[in-house]
Each structure stands twice: as structure tokens, then as C-alpha cells.
């Protein structure tokens, strides 16, 4: 490998390591559950993306063959990270947040995490189990 190729790969590796450790440290350090959601889902995903790009460049520079495997993993992680974050946020909203403390939605329907509760309350107020 040439020296400039080594420098590029090393820079991507160092960036990946720093982002990974910052994301995991934020998971411990940040104060409440909703802010704690930010650190792993953003920083760690970017860190893994950096590691995968470094790996791709390394194999291009050493063997001369270009492979799309790493881009596939990066794409998969970038697609799935917001979905997992959304699900964990909904679970957190469902369990830890007080129903009377949330801000209004601006419509008749409640927030999506509370919607099953609202449907159950309506069914119970009608007095009949909905089958």
C-alpha cells in the first residue's frame, strides 16, 4: 500500500473508533431515557459506517477488487437504526412517561404509544368487550 492510501484507511479507522466510544459513553452519561436514545442510534451507527468504509478501502487498495458487501451492511444499518430507535422510543413512552404530562397532539387522537390504551378505555366505557 502507498503511504497516502494508508493514511486514508487509518483516518477512517480512527474516526470510527472515536464515534463508537462517544456513542457508548453517551449511553451511560446522558441524563434521561429519551436523550439517551440519541447517542447509540446516531453516533454508533456512524462509527460502524466508518469502520465498514475503512474495510472496503483497505480491500480495494490491497487486492484491487471492489466489493459491495460492506456497503450492503452500511445500508442495512442505516435503514434499520431509525426503526429500532422509533420502537424503543415508543416502548419508553409506553412504560416510563406519565400520561398527563405529555404535550397535546393537536388532534383528537392521542400519541401513537398511547393509542391502544385510549382504544381500551373507549371500549371499557361502552361496557362491552370488543370481540
Amino acid at each position, binding site marked *: 500500500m502507498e503511504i497516502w492510501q494508508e493514511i486514508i484507511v487509518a483516518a477512517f479507522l480512527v474516526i470510527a*473508533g472515536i464515534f*463508537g*466510544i462517544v456513542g*457508548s*459513553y453517551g449511553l451511560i452519561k446522558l441524563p434521561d*431515557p429519551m436523550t439517551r436514545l440519541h447517542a447509540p442510534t446516531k453516533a*454508533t451507527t456512524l462509527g460502524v459506517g466508518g469502520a465498514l468504509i475503512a474495510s472496503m478501502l483497505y480491500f480495494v487498495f490491497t487486492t484491487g477488487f471492489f466489493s459491495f458487501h460492506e456497503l450492503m451492511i452500511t445500508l442495512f444499518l442505516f435503514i434499520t437504526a431509525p426503526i429500532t430507535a422509533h420502537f424503543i422510543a415508543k416502548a419508553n413512552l409506553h*412504560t416510563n412517561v406519565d400520561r398527563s404530562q405529555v404535550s397535546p397532539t393537536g388532534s383528537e387522537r392521542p400519541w401513537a404509544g398511547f393509542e*391502544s390504551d385510549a382504544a381500551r378505555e373507549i371500549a371499557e366505557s361502552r361496557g362491552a368487550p370488543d370481540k
Partner: protein
Amino acid sequence: MIVTYALFFATGCYTLALLMNLWRVVKAPGVPDRILALDTMVINFIAILVLYGIIEGTSVYFEASILIAMVGFISTVAYARFMLRSNIIE
């Protein structure tokens, strides 16, 4: 030569990150935090696997990383779904 030191640095960073996630799994204030820590552990493990692939100089580990990424995503969604509805497949 620079790449070797950068690999050591990145592997050390991700090892520390995994240890912090393990600490978070053990000492979490709530169940959603535990799920989040497990999801982060999966992502960090994928990074370690990719770095190990660079160290060994083979691209065998990418298939394993893809599989682990898929299993991790599905298990996280299943955990969150179980917390929301107390049921996974309705």
C-alpha cells in the same frame, strides 16, 4: 504500518465501548434502556467483527456481520414489541 496502529486504536475503542454497554445492560434504570444497550452491543460487535476481518486480511466475516445485523434488528424489534403489546405476533 499506520494502519496497524489505527486498527489497534479502533479495536481498543470498540472493546471499551462493549464493556460500557455491558455495564449498562447490568445496571440499567429501566427495561427500554436495557434493550437500547443490547442493540448498541450488537452494532459495536459488528464493528469489532469488521475490524477483525481487516486484521486477518479475509472477507469471510462480512457474511457473519450481515447475519448478526439482521438478527440484532429483529430481536430489538421483538423486544420493543413485547414491551408495547405484551405479545410479539398477534
